[in-house]
């Protein structure tokens, strides 16, 4: 579904040259949920923006369903790390969710149905008339997720979407992503710096090295498909996996 081949990205400008990503190669199968972990500043956001067609790679290639990505592809939705700034404060929640659908030229009726359905599935059915800034941080993040869902993407890119919400909300949102993924069969690439979250959510975890970034390790998460916060997290296999990822991330930070 999604193929990243030899991705290399160098930021140049104002006299500074930063090699954010050295050489990344991996692929994500259709309907798979893959988590990316790596130390802060290792180029996770850069990678995701290249995959989403928002940044042009310096070298290498991203292919979506066989076609090279050279701009934001129609079947892809992005949930940004800075969700507060990603919602438009001049539009109500419903309008925020609806705007991308207008671009898709869907009928009014269809748009209404999609917006209502998406808000319903994130538990915000009655917030459609509010402005984003009238909602709490966790609710805003759910609006951003609803907007991505309503877009009916084949591929969903999520950049540390839960970094700024409290632990309780975070657990709820994690379960929400798992549920939506299972119900809708979307392909999800999920970036996080939280090791527990990566293991709990993913079918597979990719550990990135520190900058200059390469894929350090790929780990299959062989936990049962039905996961829940209480039982999965005390599963001995969960503990083994998280220890393994933890060691890799620590080693990556030390740069070995």
């Amino acid at each position, binding site marked *: 579904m999604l193929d990243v081949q030899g991705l290399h990205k160098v930021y140049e400008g104002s006299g500074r040259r930063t090699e954010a990503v050295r050489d990344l190669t991996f692929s994500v199968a259709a309907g798979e949920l893959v988590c990316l972990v790596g130390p802060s500043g290792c180029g996770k956001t850069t990678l995701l923006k290249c995959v989403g067609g*928002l940044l042009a790679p310096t070298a290498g290639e991203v292919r979506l369903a066989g076609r090279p990505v050279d701009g*934001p592809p129609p079947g*892809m939705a*992005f949930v*940004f790390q800075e969700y507060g700034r990603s919602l*438009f404060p001049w*539009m109500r929640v419903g309008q925020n969710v609806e705007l991308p659908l207008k*671009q898709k030229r869907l009928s009014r009726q269809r748009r209404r149905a999609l917006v209502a359905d998406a808000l319903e599935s994130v538990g915000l059915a009655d917030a459609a008339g*509010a402005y984003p*800034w009238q909602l709490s941080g966790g609710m805003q993040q759910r609006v951003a997720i609803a907007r991505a869902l309503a877009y009916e993407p084949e591929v969903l890119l999520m950049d540390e979407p839960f970094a700024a919400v409290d632990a309780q909300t975070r657990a709820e949102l994690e379960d929400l992503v798992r549920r939506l993924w299972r119900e809708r069969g979307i392909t999800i690439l999920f970036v996080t710096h939280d090791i527990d979250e990566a293991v709990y959510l993913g079918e597979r975890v990719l550990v990135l090295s520190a900058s200059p970034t390469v894929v350090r390790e790929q780990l299959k998460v062989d936990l049962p498909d039905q996961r829940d916060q209480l039982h999965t997290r005390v599963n001995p296999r969960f503990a083994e996996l998280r220890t393994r990822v933890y060691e890799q991330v620590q080693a990556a930070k030390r740069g070995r």
Partner: protein
Amino acid sequence: MRGSDAALGAAGCAVFVLLGEAVPRLGLVDEDHFPPACRIAGALGRELSDTAFWSALGDTLTGWALGLAIAVSAGVVAGVVISVVPYLREVTASTIEFLRPIPSVALIPLAVLLYGTELRSVLLLVGYAAFWQVLIQVLYGVRDVDPVAEETARSYGLGGWARVRHVLWPTALPYVMTGVRLAAAVALILAVTAELVIGAPGLGARIAVAQTSQAVPEMYALIVVTGVLGLLINVGTRAVERRALAWHQSVRGEVAV
């Protein structure tokens, strides 16, 4: 709080009017040059019942509104184009910095040369002065676009025009509104100035006539009218601003949730 503020304001006004009455009466200033408030009020009453006054008021408002409308449309279009087209901002920056500080009144000879005492003279001066107020605000406003909002729009496939309409314009709107408010005030000043100096028909020309014919109370009455006009314009633009920006931080507190 609000009520007591209004009461204090009214009391201040009343004291000011009383002073305006008492000071000339006590002979502290020359009554021929500073007539007492009640004579100004009388002159104002006579003006209000004179059709010539109303047509002068109409002329001034026409010059103001047309000039402002031209300046706002031109300022918004120019501002957006300069910001959106690559390199255009850099190319135009020094020209703008040179043209902007030229006081509009310095263009009076040019206006007279081109259009004499026609309405177009007033429009030229009003338009020139108001244009920069709007343009500068639009340029600042567009610079305020959040890169995350812009990337969000791009990632959902919004094209260039859709991004101008849904991201750039709403971001710049608070600045545009400030620009329009400033431009509206400047436009009134320039409209009256043009009429006063060039003699284009309007309140300014009427003030000049009152002055040359020694009708001092009438002159003051007309000045009071221009002051009230400025006040109404300010109140009006603020109300429009509040309506248009109900979502924005600077007025958010007043939105019913």
